[in-house]
């Protein structure tokens, strides 16, 4: 799990003022932002998103803070950079025209020959000129290390670049410099560049994890203040740019809700002594065929009946199948879909990492503003991702729904068909959720019966009994408690004493 913020390991340094950057989630990890007026390095392998990060730094400065900026580019021509971010809705060309962004085109120009000693005073002068022209408060220098390719003496280039970087200090502009690295877990940057950018280092990693690209951001150091340690997942959202997840979705939680909402089933509502809390996460765990999807549909329908909007996220079936299945249980969802009160969103986690999925879910919720959601199933997400990524996703999802005051119903499938370890998938999931309902097959008297139990429900004096339930054309019906049965959770249901229950006997009184 990501580190909680704590005292920095370094001895206390004089606190430097921080410049809030405006990249979602980053400022939290960075302990407030970048050191104001100082230089921070952002290093990453090719494709990690360093250039995007820097351009977002400039764009956010203009949009959110009304600050002007300067851009120095060594590798890509300015026109190419502008074009690359157009699809994000960032109009850098417009900023230039409006005099809010100055650009230094430091890309290689004419054919060049070396003859004797040189320095980079011209570069320094051009940067100063650009900064002064628009009174820039933010400066982004992209691909500084590209200049090494143009000159023969790397040692001399490093020495002279260091002088330029030091001279920028006099400008007192919050500066971000991007450089390339060749290894995800090797030296900070190529050519030892990190040695002369002393005030801060941010590393963007783009490693392969189980066949998926997993992007993480690490604040290695930021002078003059605290910052969070460790690696944080980030995504490159095609609509928003870089977003550090799940930090970006974790917001201060308000007071917990005392309002109860129906699970959509009379029997279950009674077992939970009135339904679940408005902003809680409830997990139902059961083998295939036990009725998890049915419960998810019930939950959603309860919301619709109460006049609320709902989203059902499906990761295993397509929307048409979901509607058809619900109809077979006596629930009609098609009309609500047409009336845009219900959205059934099929997402394909195999195609995107869990961080991207979380951001997508955040957008889906922001766009539709449901009051409750269902996720069928969490197990589909667990497959094909690392335990760490799944845990992060779960935490992020929990924070997302709680901060929005949304009730969430999640389904998951344990490994065994009958009984099983009695647990749910993953330690983290069971600790994150507020309630757990188990659906289990029970083999009794040569028959397969079904049992439901509310294993946990925070803040509620819930039913402790294992009740039998059946599923038919009217949906799920919860019946009498299964007395005289033991060992359900241990996977070995059997009667004790000489008690005996006929199949389906007794309606709930």
């Amino acid at each position: 799990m990501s580190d909680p913020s704590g005292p920095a390991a370094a001895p206390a340094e004089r606190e430097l003022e921080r410049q809030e950057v405006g990249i979602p989630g980053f400022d939290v990890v960075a302990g407030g932002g970048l050191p104001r007026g100082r230089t921070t390095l952002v290093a990453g392998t090719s494709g990690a998103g360093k250039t995007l990060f820097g351009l977002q730094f400039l764009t956010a400065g203009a949009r959110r803070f009304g600050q002007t900026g300067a851009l120095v580019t060594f590798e890509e021509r300015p026109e190419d950079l502008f074009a690359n971010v157009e699809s994000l809705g960032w109009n850098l060309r417009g900023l230039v025209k409006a005099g809010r962004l100055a650009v230094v085109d430091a890309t290689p120009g004419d054919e060049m020959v070396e003859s004797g000693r040189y320095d980079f005073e011209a570069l320094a002068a051009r940067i100063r000129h650009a900064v002064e022209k628009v009174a820039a408060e933010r400066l982004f220098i992209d691909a500084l290390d590209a200049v090494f390719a143009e000159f023969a003496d790397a040692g001399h280039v490093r020495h002279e670049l260091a002088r330029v970087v030091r001279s920028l200090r006099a400008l007192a502009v919050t500066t971000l410099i991007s450089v390339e690295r060749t290894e995800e877990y090797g030296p900070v940057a190529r050519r030892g560049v990190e040695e002369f950018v002393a005030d801060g280092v941010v590393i963007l990693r783009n490693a392969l994890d189980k066949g998926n690209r997993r992007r993480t951001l690490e604040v290695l150091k930021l002078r003059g203040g605290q910052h969070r340690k460790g690696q944080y997942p980030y995504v490159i959202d095609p609509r928003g740019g870089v977003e550090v997840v799940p930090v970006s979705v974790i917001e201060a939680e308000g007071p917990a809700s005392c309002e109860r909402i129906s699970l959509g089933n009379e029997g279950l509502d009674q077992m939970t002594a009135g339904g679940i809390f408005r902003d809680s996460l409830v997990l139902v765990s059961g083998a295939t065929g036990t009725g998890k999807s049915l419960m998810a549909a019930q939950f959603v329908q309860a919301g619709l009946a109460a006049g609320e909007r709902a989203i059902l996220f499906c990761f295993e079936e397509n929307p048409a199948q979901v509607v058809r299945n619900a109809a077979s249980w006596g629930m009609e969802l098609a009309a609500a879909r047409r009336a845009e009160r219900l959205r059934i969103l099929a997402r394909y986690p195999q195609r995107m990492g869990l961080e991207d999925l979380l951001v997508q879910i955040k957008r889906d919720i922001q766009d539709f503003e449901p009051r409750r959601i269902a996720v069928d199933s969490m197990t589909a997400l667990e497959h094909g991702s690392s335990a760490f990524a799944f845990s992060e996703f779960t935490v992020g999802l929990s924070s997302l729904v709680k901060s929005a005051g949304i009730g969430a119903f999640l389904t998951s499938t344990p490994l065994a068909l009958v009984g099983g370890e009695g647990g749910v998938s993953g330690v983290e999931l069971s600790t994150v959720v507020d309630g757990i309902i188990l659906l289990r097959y029970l083999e009794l008297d040569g028959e397969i019966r079904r049992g439901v139990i509310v294993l946990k429900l925070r803040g509620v004096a819930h039913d402790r009994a294992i009740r039998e339930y059946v599923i038919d054309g009217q949906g799920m019906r919860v019946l009498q408690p299964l007395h005289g049965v033991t060992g359900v959770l241990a996977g070995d249901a059997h009667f004790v004493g000489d008690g005996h229950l006929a199949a389906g006997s007794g309606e709930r009184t």
Partner: protein
Amino acid sequence: MWRLDDRARSASTLANKPRGDEATLALRLFVADDSTSSVRARQQVERLQERFDAGGWEVQVVDVLERPDLAEEERVLATPSLVRRRPSPPRKIVGDLSDWEVLTAALGLSEARDE
């Protein structure tokens, strides 16, 4: 007769027709104040003019500290930088120009033309 000053193109320069077998050369030397390498580069350009220029050259010296906009225009990173603007294609020689052979070769000047 040579001159090494900031000067805009003037009628008198154009009026001095170049020697028949000498290419017209337009040079811009970017320097940074009077750093050691800047002074050296200026000296080398003066030497070039002594040796090769019969009045057909156009030489400008630009101090990047005073005219960073011109440095931006020519995309000059290092100082000194000697930019050969004419004849095409444009060429850049970076450094104090201390290597005479490299300098003359890069500018397409042959010692054989030396008087």
